[in-house]
């Protein structure tokens, strides 16, 4: 490439990589659409699990990565979403559509309540209060036998006929994931997202340029809760059973690990992290009952050597290359 | 006493000091001058070991201290007062002082420090974090003195202080040198530098551009307008 075009490339750099990203995404989606024809049933099911988890992790990242809030108990909203579907479908005669609509709304409502208390706090206090209130929700779900069946969970949750085959579940989760990711992406690039970043960087300053930081955070919390609720719906579609362990804090820790593994600063990071973790846990579990040990060691390595996450590192390398090219 | 030879210091990848050298002899007050961001603070941090240089050597009393850990500097006779004061906000003023005392024995103790800065006696039980900027600066210097330094390194001690306090502080610093402590000082304020120092180094982009006595600098209009813009 001659030095003359350098400047034009520099200018179009943004659009070029956007197109490249878009192209890659489209190719990826096409491949994913063909998966049920290529892979065996089990892997189709596993990918559906990956999609569900990816949505959950991405929704957390809105608060964690963009909002900079140490949200330690995101699994609660996921669990609430899943339980809402389960309870509506087993204890009422309402239609499935109602359950599907109610679940994210109810998850968002719980997020509103928990968030309303939490956004008054900063840093670790925020994290600890999410943990305390989240565990309270867990305790209620665990204890409210009449409604939730306690720790037995709710099983054989009926869903419409067309959603019972693994392939249809696969396509549903895939489509919902893509739609949700697009929405989350749009939000993250909107003024709301930019302002959220500003409140993360410097809440005091944000407040003094006229941003209602608490409300902003609360809204982010509710949005994240909403999408976690959607992930909960997907979970019910995939597994058709729920148990209180979905709302226990170590589930939330797993989601945090996924976000970190993929990279908090990159939009697709959590999705990648979810994919890696779900697949890895399956593969490792085949060979040893010490999966948690392996996970622990993996996390250790990640934290010590790759704290920006896998995608984070890739982006950094990419960025460096680009700036090196640009410098010449 | 202090001999800095050709140091190169980096923050991550960014190269800040480019082969900087300077000397401080015993009993001297040496001043680093230069505009914002020329590397004064970085030089001092390099000496004290907070951002060790990538290449070059630093000798103190003939001993190489280039890679010595920061926490051993006091024992060697080097104390540092950073530019943003760094008071332990959660400790009382008295506790702030107590911590620093006793690391290296010498003439300075609590009483003597209170004699130099009577204010500190009055606010003894207040939380360090609740002091005003000037009070914090005094506490910070007092704390460094309790390390009984042979060389005291001060980073912009007068920054953000009221004129009255600045003058008071300048007097106190002059009093200090009369006790035989050598002082290395970073300043933007030429006036106070001229008042305090024996010799000056003028920095620009991480390099020494002028070196000489205060009188030489006072005469050298050229350097002053070029590097200090006064």
């Amino acid at each position, binding site marked *: 490439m001659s030095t003359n075009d350098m400047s034009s490339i520099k200018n179009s750099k943004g659009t070029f990589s956007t197109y490249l990203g878009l192209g890659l995404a489209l190719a990826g989606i096409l491949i994913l659409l063909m998966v049920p024809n290529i892979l*065996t049933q089990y892997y189709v099911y596993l990918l559906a699990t990956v999609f569900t988890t990816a949505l959950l992790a991405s929704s957390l990242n809105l608060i964690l990565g963009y909002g900079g809030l140490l949200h330690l108990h995101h699994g609660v909203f996921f669990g609430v979403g899943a339980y809402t579907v389960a309870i509506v479908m087993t204890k009422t005669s309402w239609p499935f559509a109602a359950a599907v609509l109610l679940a994210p709304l109810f998850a968002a409502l719980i997020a509103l309540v928990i968030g309303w208390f939490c956004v008054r706090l900063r840093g670790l206090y925020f994290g600890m209060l999410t943990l305390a209130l989240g565990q309270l929700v867990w305790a209620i779900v665990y204890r409210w036998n009449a409604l939730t069946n306690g720790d*037995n*969970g709710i099983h054989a949750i009926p869903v419409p006929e067309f959603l019972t085959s693994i392939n249809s579940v696969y396509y549903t989760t895939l489509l919902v994931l893509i739609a949700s990711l697009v929405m989350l992406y749009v939000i993250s690039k909107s003024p709301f997202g930019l302002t959220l970043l500003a409140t993360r960087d410097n809440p005091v300053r944000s407040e003094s340029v006229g941003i209602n930081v608490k409300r902003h955070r609360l809204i982010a919390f509710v949005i994240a809760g909403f999408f976690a609720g959607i992930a909960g719906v997907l979970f019910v579609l995939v597994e058709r059973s729920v*148990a209180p362990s979905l709302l226990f804090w170590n589930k939330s820790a797993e989601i945090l690990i996924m976000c970190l593994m993929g990279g908090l600063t990159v939009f697709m990071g959590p999705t990648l992290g979810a994919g890696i973790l779900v697949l890895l846990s399956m593969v490792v579990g085949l060979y040893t*009952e010490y999966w948690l040990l392996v996970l622990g060691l993996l996390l250790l390595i990640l934290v010590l050597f790759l704290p920006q996450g896998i995608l984070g590192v890739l982006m950094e390398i990419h960025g460096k290359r680009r700036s090196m090219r640009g410098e010449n | 006493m202090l001999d800095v030879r050709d140091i190169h210091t980096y923050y991550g990848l960014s190269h800040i000091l480019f082969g900087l050298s300077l000397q401080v002899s015993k009993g001297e007050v040496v001043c680093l001058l230069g505009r914002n961001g020329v590397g004064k603070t970085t030089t001092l941090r390099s000496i004290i070991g907070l951002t060790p240089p990538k290449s070059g050597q630093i000798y103190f009393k003939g001993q190489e201290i280039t890679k010595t850990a920061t926490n051993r500097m006091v024992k060697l006779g080097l104390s540092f007062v950073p530019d943003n004061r760094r008071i332990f906000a959660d400790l009382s003023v008295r506790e702030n002082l107590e911590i620093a005392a006793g690391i290296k024995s010498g003439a300075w103790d609590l009483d003597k420090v209170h004699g130099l800065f009577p204010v500190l006696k009055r606010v003894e039980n207040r939380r360090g974090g609740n002091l005003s900027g000037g009070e914090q600066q005094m506490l910070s210097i007092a704390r460094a003195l309790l390390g009984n330094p042979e060389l005291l390194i001060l980073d912009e001690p007068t920054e953000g202080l009221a004129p009255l306090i600045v003058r008071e502080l300048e007097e106190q610093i002059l009093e200090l040198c009369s006790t035989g402590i050598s002082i290395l000082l970073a300043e933007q304020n030429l006036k106070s530098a001229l008042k305090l120092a024996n010799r000056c180094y003028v920095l620009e982009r991480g390099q020494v551009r002028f070196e000489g006595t205060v009188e030489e600098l006072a005469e050298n209009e050229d350097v002053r307008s070029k590097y200090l813009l006064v």
Partner: protein
Amino acid sequence: GSSPVAKKETKPIKVGIVDTYTGGAAVYAKDSLDGFKLAVKEFTDKGGPKIEFVTRDDEFKPDKSTSWAKELVMREQVDFLAGTTNSAGSLAVSQYAKESKVPFIVWGGMSDKITGEAGHRYVFSTLPNTAIIGKAGAVQLSKTSYKKIWLAGSDYEYGHSVINNLWSNLTTLKPDVVKVEESWWRVGETDFTPYINAIRSAKPDVLVVGTGGADMVAFMKAVKATGLIQEIPVWAHTSYDPATLRPLGDQAPEGVMGTNPYLFDYPDTAENKAFVEAFKKEYNREPAAFALYGYLGGKFLGEAIEKAGSTDKEKIIDAMEGLTIDSPVGKATLRKEDHQVAIPMSYGVVAKVNGVFTAKDLHTLSPEEIMPSIDSILKARSK
């Protein structure tokens, strides 16, 4: 020696075991797995049906149980599923077993829902469930004169289910009993004194406890330390089980009543002795109750395959329904209607005999006495 039947080339039956091999509950999964392995070995030694197996760890998380079950069925292509100490996991896997028509032998989950209201053609249970335990306790307590009863237990399915079943059976057997109050502690409670103090102050005639695992041992310790047993009689399932008494050392509270499905030294029969010997030889320890459940699972499966003379899953299920085998505790039957194993249970009290803590006043409750009626189960299922 090899019998002519075994010569026939049959494909081995593959069992996929999902169970909890991590955390506090891992001790049970280990026992039942060893019991199952013993049964498999016995069939192999005498040239019976070939049984292969693979294990997966669900970490006591029900969502992991199902995802492993699915992996085992879809990827590993197992013929049978088994395991899951976690009742919720059992129920979740059972639901999948029904959908995928892969039979599931439960030897870990004790919830009465598994073969009760949530039972179906593809799920079998080779351990006494909470309905049976509760009924056995009720039978034992109905023979006493206690009227004012305090109910307590671990705040989870097992605890609640044992207590509910016990209470409903006891009120039928002995209508004049009254409940003073109930208290529930979290699983993993380390300090039982506040519970015991509260109970003591209410002065019930008897304290009836449904707690299990690690909590059982800790609870018994507290009963001893607080001296509760001197004031108020206590009943707890598995109170005199070696798994409870061994860790307690000389801190076992004498006089605590209880029921128990299996002891390695009771009943003192040849079958039991043989089983204990074989188990000891293999694993260098005495078999605990879950070892028996795993063993029964293996035995029922093997004998059903032989009986069916086929490796066809549906035929094996048919053969399993109502199958009666000889077991270390006597005749064991997988009831035809609900696929729940029927074995006897003992009751007695904790006592110090010749300086060691063990059980005394042991009696046997026959399966007929303690099994929930078929009618009640069919009623629950039709709901």
